[in-house]
């Protein structure tokens, strides 16, 4: 009994802010893996579907059918994890929503609209395979793609608004008294940030799906079905990779101009100066010195503005008081994440170049085992790249939740029990993740056993006389 009381007292003394942060970060990190699939898989499925109908391609048809079934699962998980986020905005950040919901909420009204459209047509497309006419069915998939794009753009617009708050007027008490919805949605950070995420969605989705087929081909499944699956998905990713380099570069320069402190954290710049080196790895110390890593002289200055080159002045972290910039640890997190994003992004770009050159020269995909090995890893690497990029965006904004208007600690809930919900959510999400992968694997096994297309019978039984777990040969591994 006394122990119980003691632990309750401890619970009451737990600072909710880091736990709220951790829970938001964790749930977003999980949800963001499903986003690319939600946004881009429908497009790839339609490519397969189009090919099937146009060229009478049976493999592409089966591919499109199976992809739509996998999509149903990932879309469902994405929908529920997305709903959890809409709870969490209020549960974890009530003061943020109370003060800024009137402005911040606007893009979500449109996001909800697009998500609604997406959910409706995903249902029609997934369930429409049997009775709808082939081309009618194909067209019911198109709204999914369009709604996916606009939905992603709207939700990123809300995040961009946190980086570049606009479209509102405050009164002397700091309350929002006037809102200009277009100003909120089309804030300064929105065009580039949305483009960066949208391209990332296609890129990650493409690499993720193609890596499954690359792994299958490495295990000897080099039939036409697997090749088609690989080619469609990998081509989408390969086309997007160079686009992303351009968009990412433009966005970095936007950050240089508009969020100088974030840029200083990215480039590890403690004090304002020109001729700033590009530091690969390395770390910032509490005394403001940078140690370790490889410094390329002048490159960070040069990249920030090639016009002025090495003489470009980069604002340092010391230009703002310590409580208005990320802590040393956060700076190091941002910098390392940046290195990971750029490093892996470049590696994926080189992989795409390899693929592109092979097509240009030999009119076929690279035949090397090493190419397939690299492609099989590309899915996971692309996810890591995206997560790292997202860490740069979010941690780089610290300590602000609304840049220069509200700090994270002032936005957080005062509910000291957040650590409990964090643990429950973490356990539930880990189980959800494992189950999702297991279910996708089980589906692929079952599809393979049945050859063509399998449908589901009544839930619970009467039991199908197939035991999962036998066979054990899986080449279509879920990412």
């Amino acid at each position: 009994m006394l122990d119980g009381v003691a632990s309750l007292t401890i619970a009451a003394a737990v600072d909710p802010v880091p736990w709220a942060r951790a829970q938001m970060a964790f749930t977003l990190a999980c949800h963001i893996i499903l986003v690319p699939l939600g946004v881009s898989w429908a497009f790839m499925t339609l490519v397969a579907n189009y090919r099937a109908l146009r060229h009478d391609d049976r493999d592409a048809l089966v591919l499109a059918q199976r992809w739509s079934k996998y999509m149903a699962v990932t879309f469902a998980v994405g929908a529920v994890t997305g709903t959890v986020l809409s709870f969490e905005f209020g549960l974890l950040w009530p003061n943020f929503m109370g003060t800024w919901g009137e402005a911040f909420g606007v893009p979500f009204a449109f996001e909800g609209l697009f998500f609604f459209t997406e959910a409706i047509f995903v249902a029609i497309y997934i369930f429409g395979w049997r009775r709808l006419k082939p081309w009618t069915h194909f067209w019911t998939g198109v709204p999914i793609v369009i709604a996916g794009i606009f939905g992603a753009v709207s939700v990123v617009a809300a995040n961009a608004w946190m980086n570049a708050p606009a479209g509102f007027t405050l009164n002397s008490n700091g309350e929002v008294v006037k809102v200009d919805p277009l100003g909120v949605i089309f804030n300064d950070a929105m065009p580039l940030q949305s483009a960066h995420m949208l391209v990332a969605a296609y890129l990650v989705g493409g690499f993720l799906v193609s890596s499954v087929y690359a792994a299958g081909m490495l295990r000897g499944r080099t039939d036409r079905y697997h090749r088609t699956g690989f080619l469609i998905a990998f081509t989408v990713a390969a086309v997007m990779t160079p686009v992303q380099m351009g968009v990412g570069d433009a966005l970095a320069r936007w950050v240089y101009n508009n969020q100088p402190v974030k840029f200083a954290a990215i480039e590890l710049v403690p004090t304002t100066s020109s001729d700033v080196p590009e530091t690969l790895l390395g770390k910032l110390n509490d005394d403001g010195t940078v140690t370790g890593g490889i410094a390329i002289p002048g490159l960070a200055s040069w990249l920030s503005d090639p016009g002025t080159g090495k003489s470009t002045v980069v604002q340092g972290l010391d230009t703002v008081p310590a409580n208005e910039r990320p802590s040393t640890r956060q700076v190091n997190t941002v910098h390392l994440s940046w290195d990971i994003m750029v490093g892996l992004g470049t590696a994926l770009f080189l992989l795409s170049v390899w693929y592109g050159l092979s097509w240009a020269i030999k009119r076929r995909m690279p035949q090397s085992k090493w190419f397939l090995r690299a492609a099989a890893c590309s899915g996971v690497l692309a996810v890591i790249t995206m997560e790292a990029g997202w860490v740069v965006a979010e941690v780089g904004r610290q300590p602000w939740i609304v840049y220069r208007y509200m700090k994270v600690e002032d936005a957080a809930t005062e509910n000291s029990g957040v650590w409990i919900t964090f643990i429950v959510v973490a356990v539930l999400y880990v189980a959800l993740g494992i189950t999702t992968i297991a279910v996708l694997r089980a589906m692929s096994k079952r599809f393979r056993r049945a050859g063509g297309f399998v449908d589901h019978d009544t839930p619970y039984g009467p039991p199908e006389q197939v035991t999962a777990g036998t066979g054990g040969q899986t080449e279509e591994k879920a990412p």
Partner: protein
Amino acid sequence: MSTTIAVVLLLALAAYAVFGGADFGAGFWDLTAGGPEQGAAPRAVIDRSIGAVWEANHVWLIFIFVVTWSAFSPAYAAIMLTMYVPLTLAALGIVLRGSSFAFRKSVATLRYRRIFGGGFALSSVLVPFCMGAIAGGIASGQVPAGGKAGDPVDSWLNLASIVTGVFAVVVAAYLASVYLVRDARSAGDTAMVEYFRRRAVVTAVVAAVVAGVDLIVLNSKASYVFDGLMSRGLALVILSVLCGFGALVLLVRNAARGARVLAILAVASIIGSWGAAQWPYLLPESLKVSEAAAPDGTLTALLVAVGVALVLVVPGFVLLYLLHERQLLPEEGAEDVSDRSPAAR
């Protein structure tokens, strides 16, 4: 303009109760359907009935959140601050429910289907209970306005909340059973028509009893809302009672189509009467709709979004329901697509 948005919010709540509620109710019948063999037939009806539509249904909730936090952010913050326990439980229930339903359809073995099915069914009861408890807590003035949290436990585990939570579960089960009668009939399954019809009649009676108890409790615990129900909301209360009674008569006489329409009206008017009873408050006697309302710019943007939804989303939603209704989105019992592909011809 804030009144218009409040009406939109109420309509969305009614839509969630009618569409999403039936969805949760189907989970309740899934839970009570018995063992694998015994429950196979009702579960087949349930599965067919919600298979294609559950994700779309559940967007109503997101819409309600978005409208509340954009248009009435002080109320949203206050509800979130006080009601975080039932809201967290509801969120967890939604994760469990949605994912288990999707997984259940995707796994082949009986054992896993039962595990996921259990998760789906249990959370289908948990979520409406939490939602009802929150509504009861709001109605009985447990949510203080102005950035301070109410009691995290008492605010939703008081008498008014518990009875309203139970009422929500019963109403969901009632709606679902009425829908399922129709779905079983259109599938030509007379045994299941009878099965769900019996359940619909019983839950209709139970719902009426719980509604009566809820009124008595509200009279003592939420007098503002009770008075509102007896004045501003009275017309809707009477409409709800009449529709509910009419649906019951039709169910007894086995006229499923009309029963469904009346059941929907009955439930929608319950939500409507609640809104009217609370008027002009969002949080009874502490926060008025007009006080909580966002600046005009936000409200205009929301109305534009609603307008676009009417033009774009509603036709899609109707299409989905029509296709679903006319069994054009079957999962089984139709020829395989391979028979239809040009290659196979």
